[in-house]
């Protein structure tokens, strides 16, 4: 099932299908290892509801829901 990363709940896990959006955000996501095939676990949501913290490639990454909405996931 396809789902965007910003719709994930804490504890949910999935694999990146593709990255939407463009320019700098897209490039930043790639540089940080958010590429098709990467395994991502949504760890937690910040106190004010945004951004979110995810675990991928063995480290913790923080990104906003706006950026997470560019990441299309395949839920396991």
């Amino acid at each position, binding site marked *: 099932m396809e789902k965007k990363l910003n719709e994930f709940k804490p504890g949910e896990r999935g694999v990146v299908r*593709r*990255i939407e959006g463009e320019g*700098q*955000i*897209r*490039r*930043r*996501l*790639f*540089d*940080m*290892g958010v*590429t*098709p*095939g*990467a395994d991502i676990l949504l760890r*937690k*949501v*910040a*106190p*004010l*509801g*945004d*951004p979110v*913290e995810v675990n991928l*490639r*063995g*480290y*913790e*990454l*923080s*990104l*906003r829901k*706006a*950026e997470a909405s560019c990441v299309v996931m395949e839920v396991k």
Partner: protein
Amino acid sequence: MLKFALAGNPNCGKTTLFNALTGSTAHVGNWPGVTVDKKEGTYKKLPEPVAIVDLPGIYSLSPYTPEEVISRNYIIDEKPDCVINIIDATNLERNLYLTTQIMEIDVPVVVALNMMDAVKKSGDKLDAVKLERALGIPVVEISALKNEGIPALMERAWQAAACAREGSTVLCGSALSHVIDDVKIALKGKGVPSPLFHAVKLVEGDELEVKNHPDEVAMVEAFKEQHSDDVFGGDFEAMVADERYKYISAHFSTAFTRAQKSEKLTKSDKADRVLTHRIWGIPIFLVILFAIFHLTFGEDLFYLNAMFGFAKDVDGSGYAVLTGNDVLNAFIAVFYSTAGVSTPGAIVFNLMGFVTDQIGGGIAAGLENAGAYEWAQGLVNDGIWGGLSGILSFIPQILVLFLFISILEDSGYMARVAFILDRAFRKFGLSGRAFIPMIMGFGCSVPAAINTRTLADEKERIMTNRVIPFFTCGAKAPILAAVCGAIASEFTGVNADLLVFALYVFGMAMAIVMVAFMRQTSMRGEVAPFIMELPAYHAPQLYNLMVHLWDKLKHYIKKAFTIILASSIVIWFLSHFSWEWHYLADEQINESILHDIGAFVQWICTPMGFGYNTSELRTFGWVFVVAAVTGLIAKENVITTFYVLAPAIGAVLPGWDDGESGIGAVVALMNATGITWQGLLAFTVFNMLTVPCFAAAATVKAETPKGKFRYTVAFWMLTSYITAAAVFLILSWWWTALIIAAVIAAVVAFFILRNKGKIRLNFKKKETQRE
């Protein structure tokens, strides 16, 4: 001398390695030039000494942040003899992503696998030999922290530097390999160095490369037209990134075997659960912030005395413990006084005060006994020692504050603060990322302004640089402490700590308000993205903290004995000589050069409460004007100037055994000049918000785009003037708040309506008509 460059991801232990390599011989300092912040040192344990250059931490060689551009240009243009690529072994894949890019440059590369101890501890396995074979470049296991494997690393680097290396790429198996090859050959024919690196970047559509090699862009465009791809379309930048990671997972990650993961939480996870808790995260942050300021500036540890009231003044002596010996009394009061048990900040502050009092008293007595001229006594006591002891007494406290901020940075909590506060910050037009340089501003604006380089968005960088001085730095803290202490000692029911804290918060609030204002006016645009690594927590390293503090200490000592000493001597001369170069005694200050200069501009300060408000202020208020001007040289000067000028205008200082440095000077000035507490607060606010010291202003100029600096200076001057005037007026006559609120509301409404397109200004129309 050979030159080795250290490159790697942020937070991979690069600086630790740099310190381990260069050791005590390191001459850590900024390089000449504007946008450069590379540290240089020397490694001496090879047959010949080697220069070590520490480059800023980066994730990629893309051209999006200034630090990436610095590192990239350094490796390509300065041609180091070897690049030592440090890799965090606990985070292999993402670190190797940068390695695959560095490998494309024609330069010898050696990989240093750092944090191997952490990998072994967690039970994971990493086969360095296997990795070396897969990468085709030397790989050495090290632990920078424990100083292990470093000689072996340098030996391999030394060997690698001996022979040239041609760039290699992991993209040769991809669909793009043909076009990369073609462009590379074309560039090589033109004699471009590192043709492979440039070819890959051109294919990615890198802005910098497209500008430099317009001919080859056509080749890439031609290829793009024929190429079609289901997943990426024509987005070669995405394809390249994807290929790199695919290659890394397929070929390099096999060297890594993860231990059977137990579901147990690591210590870092446990700490994180509390510190970024959905409900408690923000209150905990506020408590930590308050605790830091309390431990640095408070006098009554944890308010124990305020609650239990055990510290009593013995026999009206001013001491809580009374012995027969005066010096011993003063020494005990360093730790335990009538205010209660001292906080760490108060202890070091009192200790330094104790030492400077003894020295100052000795000097004064010595001069008197030797029968020195009156002017010479004045020059040494007030001009030289007054200025020096002014700053010396603040240094320990500034260092304590700096220590706490370093602990926050080093432990990994600072990144979580950005995470917690991003949402709140975004409302005002900044990302949570901008909060890190801002909070560093509490220590010193200079490193804070340099840190803004990590912000990718130019507007965000400009705005952050402009408001960093609003985060009261260590050098401004003494002004707050002295003024608030003086107000608290003159009026009962005022808590000095709370007042200081309120001023700190006021500075932060002003920063937020001004950012929001700029977002609506000169800096309109979207908030920059927030994609940030959250590093694992670890206990701060004592050695690192000490290096940090030592650096800072050297900086302040240098400042004390150069610019501050010089300016306090100059001030003394200007205040004790007339235009005809006659020496003036203290009470003739009204004929001095300094008086005339201060009085010339003093009328401007009337709305802020230290201008022509009363006849008394009209005579003596110029002291505050001069203090504010000397503050431009260095903010420590403000209180120092008070000390130098107070005796001159007949203010009676409490004498050299005044344990609470600064407070006595301000009280004396209050009595001598008749300035109101409202005026004093306005003066403080003015100093908090106005143009920072020369060093900070120069750094901000270097970190912001050309041509913006004069607007930045105007911004600081207007903001500080208007705000200080508003503070004075509202505190003095409450009803002025209504008028000021109305004006602010009108301005805000105007800009909001204009931005929504409801009001149009006709400037543009007129211009077009003229054309």
